[in-house]
């Protein structure tokens, strides 16, 4: 399951949603807004997406992950809009029969998400300036 949301991500509910009787391992990843990037102080982030394509890519990542590991359940959720330091911007929950699978599947899903999904963040620095983050550009 994949979701884009403007509300707080309910990662506790996500953890419950992926529990399965035939899965002995659950891995939950949370990405949160950090207060420091290098030497600069972040006070907030704004996330925007190309929503239709972002949902399509998230669904493809779910499908790819299910092809590679025996996933019981997987949820990828990304928040959009204005987030303060400490807020959860992204969450991935995965259940698998065994722990190595669950770790690898969760790691793969978040790595692919960061590589492929058309979502962008804008830094709001403590000096009042803002800056879109475009790695390599």
């Amino acid at each position: 399951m994949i979701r884009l949301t403007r509300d707080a991500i309910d990662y506790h509910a996500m953890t419950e949603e992926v529990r399965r009787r035939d899965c002995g391992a659950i891995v939950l990843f949370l990405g949160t807004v950090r207060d420091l990037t290098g030497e600069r102080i972040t006070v907030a982030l704004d996330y925007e997406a190309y929503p239709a394509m972002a949902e399509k890519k998230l669904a493809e990542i779910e499908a790819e992950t299910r092809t590679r590991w025996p996933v019981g359940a997987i949820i990828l959720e990304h928040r959009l809009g204005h987030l303060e330091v400490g807020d959860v911007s992204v969450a991935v929950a995965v259940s698998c029969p065994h722990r190595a699978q669950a770790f690898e599947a969760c790691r793969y899903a978040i790595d692919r998400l960061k590589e492929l999904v058309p979502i962008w963040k804008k830094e709001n620095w403590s000096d009042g300036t803002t800056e879109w983050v475009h790695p390599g550009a």
Partner: protein
Amino acid sequence: MKVLLFARARDLIGADRIDVDAVATIGELRRRLMRQYPHVAGLLEKSAFAVNEEFADDNVTILDGAEVALLPPVSGG
């Protein structure tokens, strides 16, 4: 044809979608935009494009009515 814009590209160009004369391929579109918006050329060089919500490299043909988007390097997560 319309091109959707996001993030820094949208801010630099000042619109979330622009009209450009029809071009045959993504590569042609990229070069056209670089001429038209020289202050965005550096970002355009590093950006991806999408046609109908799928990544499209420079040799992809743009068919009539396709949804085209300019995608600066992503930073979700």
